[in-house]
């Protein structure tokens, strides 16, 4: 309440408009449960960025922002409750950070004219904006991730991986199953052999999966894990002495907290990345000055600079840029969720935009259009340096194999379109 009054006071002072308008960003976070390890830093980063905008710039375009946090515990039922309780407050965009909740909100939010930004998660075929009018998954999606992992393995093997064995260790849920079809197509194309190993929620029990890896000795392991599953998997890989440089996690399996429990044995573990690593950006100086030193940091304020925190910052930055775009298109400062959707659809992230936001070279450049809600799908690769205790970017943002991914997106979205009688969004 205090916080709410505070932001309202700021809005009252700064806003050009006489009404106490604000831009509402619901944050369906999870600070409890087996996935909290990733949920806390992301939620902190998301909230801190908007606090910074309020403190430093007085909001976006003169209108203060307000983050409505609602605890989901990664649970779909609570996600529905959170959605229903926050949408009436003028929510602009939902970022549920859960593939399960995203699936649930796609039809609901579309009917309520509220956009969803599932950044690097959610339904991959939502990249086809012609079918999914209100869902965005730029800058990259799960299938880009699968392709990027295979591309990296190709690079390691001088472009030839025929006859190699690759195992996919995945969270046995919609999230983990997403890349399977892409990897199957890629295995046909490149001639590698794919083994699928499912890990059930929450992922603490993986002995049998790693026993199988030990027996079958795959050349590479790709992991789609989240929460406590990551730490267990890295530990198990270390236990069977699986060569860490051949173990690649998706961007959700690449946080500091995932590898530190395994200690030095985790050295060399690789993970894909959506953003640059570390806190060596001009934005962090402002964060320190306006948010941390002012005592306004979300949560415990100890997550700055970690990978999921940076991703929260990035998600908030993209949302803020979309708001600016929407304000520009419609000429109103206090935008609605429908205008927000238009802003997201016209979003262009260039190097200048990122530099202006204090985050030069932080993420890939991309542009969104009506047909393409997924951006260009550029993915980087990072590697864990246990000695220094940090992830190091070892490959720059590189394109993925859209010749395989695009037909899959078209196929899956066409099925959804037919199933639900959806009209074309573009034209």
């Amino acid at each position, binding site marked *: 309440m205090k916080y709410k009054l505070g932001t309202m006071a700021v809005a009252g002072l700064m806003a050009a408009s006489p009404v106490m308008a604000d831009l509402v960003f619901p944050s369906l976070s999870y*600070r409890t449960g087996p996935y909290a390890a990733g949920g806390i830093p992301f939620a902190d980063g998301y909230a801190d960025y908007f606090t910074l905008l309020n403190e430093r710039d007085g909001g976006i375009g003169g209108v203060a922002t307000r983050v409505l946090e*609602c605890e989901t515990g990664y649970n*779909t039922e609570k996600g529905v409750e959170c959605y229903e309780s926050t949408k009436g407050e003028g929510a602009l965009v939902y970022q549920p950070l859960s593939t*399960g909740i995203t*699936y649930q909100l*796609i*039809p*609901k939010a579309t009917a309520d004219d509220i956009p969803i930004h599932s950044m690097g998660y959610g339904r991959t075929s939502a990249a086809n904006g012609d079918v999914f009018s209100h869902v965005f998954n730029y800058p990259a999606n799960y299938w880009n991730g699968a392709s990027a992992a295979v591309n990296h393995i190709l690079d390691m093997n001088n472009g030839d991986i025929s006859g190699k064995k690759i195992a996919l260790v995945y969270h046995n849920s919609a999230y983990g199953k997403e890349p*399977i079809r892409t990897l199957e197509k890629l295995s046909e194309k490149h001639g590698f052999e794919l083994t699928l190993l499912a890990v059930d929620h929450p992922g603490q029990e993986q002995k049998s999966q790693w026993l199988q890896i030990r027996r079958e000795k795959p050349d590479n392991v790709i992991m789609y894990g989240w929460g406590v599953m990551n730490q267990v998997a890295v530990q198990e890989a270390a236990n069977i002495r699986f060569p860490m440089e051949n173990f690649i996690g998706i961007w959700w399996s690449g946080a500091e907290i995932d590898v530190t429990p395994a200690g030095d044995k985790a050295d060399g573990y690789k993970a894909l990345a959506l953003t640059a690593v570390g806190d060596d950006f001009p934005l962090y100086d402002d964060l320190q000055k306006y948010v941390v030193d002012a005592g306004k940091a979300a*949560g415990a304020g100890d997550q700055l600079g970690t990978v999921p925190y940076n991703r929260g910052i990035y998600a908030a930055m993209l949302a803020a840029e979309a708001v600016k775009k929407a304000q520009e298109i419609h000429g109103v400062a206090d935008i609605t969720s429908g205008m927000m959707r238009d802003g997201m659809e016209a979003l262009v992230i260039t190097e200048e935009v990122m530099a202006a936001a204090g985050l030069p070279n932080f993420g890939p450049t991309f542009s969104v259009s009506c047909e393409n809600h997924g951006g260009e799908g550029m993915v980087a690769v990072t590697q864990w340096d246990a000695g220094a205790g940090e992830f190091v970017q070892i490959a720059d943002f590189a394109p993925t194999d859209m010749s395989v991914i695009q037909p899959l997106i078209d196929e899956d979205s066409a099925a959804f379109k037919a199933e639900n009688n959806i009209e074309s969004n573009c034209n």
Partner: protein
Amino acid sequence: MLYREAGDFSTTYSQDSQTFPIRFDRWRYYAVLFVAIFVIPFMVNDYWVNSIFMPFLIYSIAAIGLNILVGYCGQVSLGTGGFMAVGAYACYKLMTAFPDVSMFIHVLLAGGITAGVGVLFGLPSLRIKGFYLAVATLAAQFFLVWLFNRVSWFYNYSASGQINAPERDTFGILITGPNTEAWATYLFCLIFTVFSAVVARNLTRGSVGREWMAIRDMDIAAEIIGVNPLRAKLTAFAVSSFFVGISGALFFAVYLGAVEVGEAFGITKSFLVLFMIIIGGLGSIFGSFAGAAFLVLLPVLLKVVGVDWFGWPTDIVAHLNLVIVGGLIVIFLIVEPHGLAQLWRLAKEKLRLWPFPH
């Protein structure tokens, strides 16, 4: 003063054996039904239906179903989540295979299919009892979840393994999908809840229910006086699974709209429904409602009070919720093992004499 039977004369047997023999109680029941059917639908919005009424109604059906098996027939089951999943996937397959059929029929058929599966998993109950049966139903829980994860026919070969409820209607009114009206989904669930409660109540006080209770109280004695244990146990499994299946179908199609079997119908769901009937009261229809209301409403209430009123951090409130629910379960088991239903009974006794207790 309230709940007094004075002046309430039964002149026929049917009057004597009705569900609410006391006139005041009967009128209270009619009043609740009247409010639920004719007042609430005109007042609700999306938030009230999706966050409060719908989960309450759907969990009530599941609790009634489990109560028949555990509370009335004494067969401990930990497979509720799995049976709800059967209802949900049956409903999904029916909805996608026969798009023009009314949702009422789909939900009832889903219940019927679940009843069949329930009977199948109830067969071991003829040989094993107590904890061993609990373990056998636990196996059903894990097997069913594994099955729906593994066999892609059940989720129509979708890439993610999720099932999504397409738009379906009944009598031209949309019941599933995103464009439903709050009152329509509420009434749809309410009809099934009232139907389940009335059927369950009438079954449990008839000959079938007496057989169940005889088996529960002492199965050997029941067999000696002529109760067929095969029939009694299997009907209990069938009826129980029928209701649980209906609740699973509604849970997926009307309430959530998209589910993933491991997350929505995991072992935690089985325990949640079991806690509902333990807190509510074993062997009581009212207890099923009370337990469902308690476990559905308490987290929402705590959230509203903690986060929206006091502005506490969301994680503190979420943890507090676990502490309070856990503490209350322990307190209930110690202080009132018969649950909220017994408290209600005692309150009625007290109210009958109030304000002159002597």
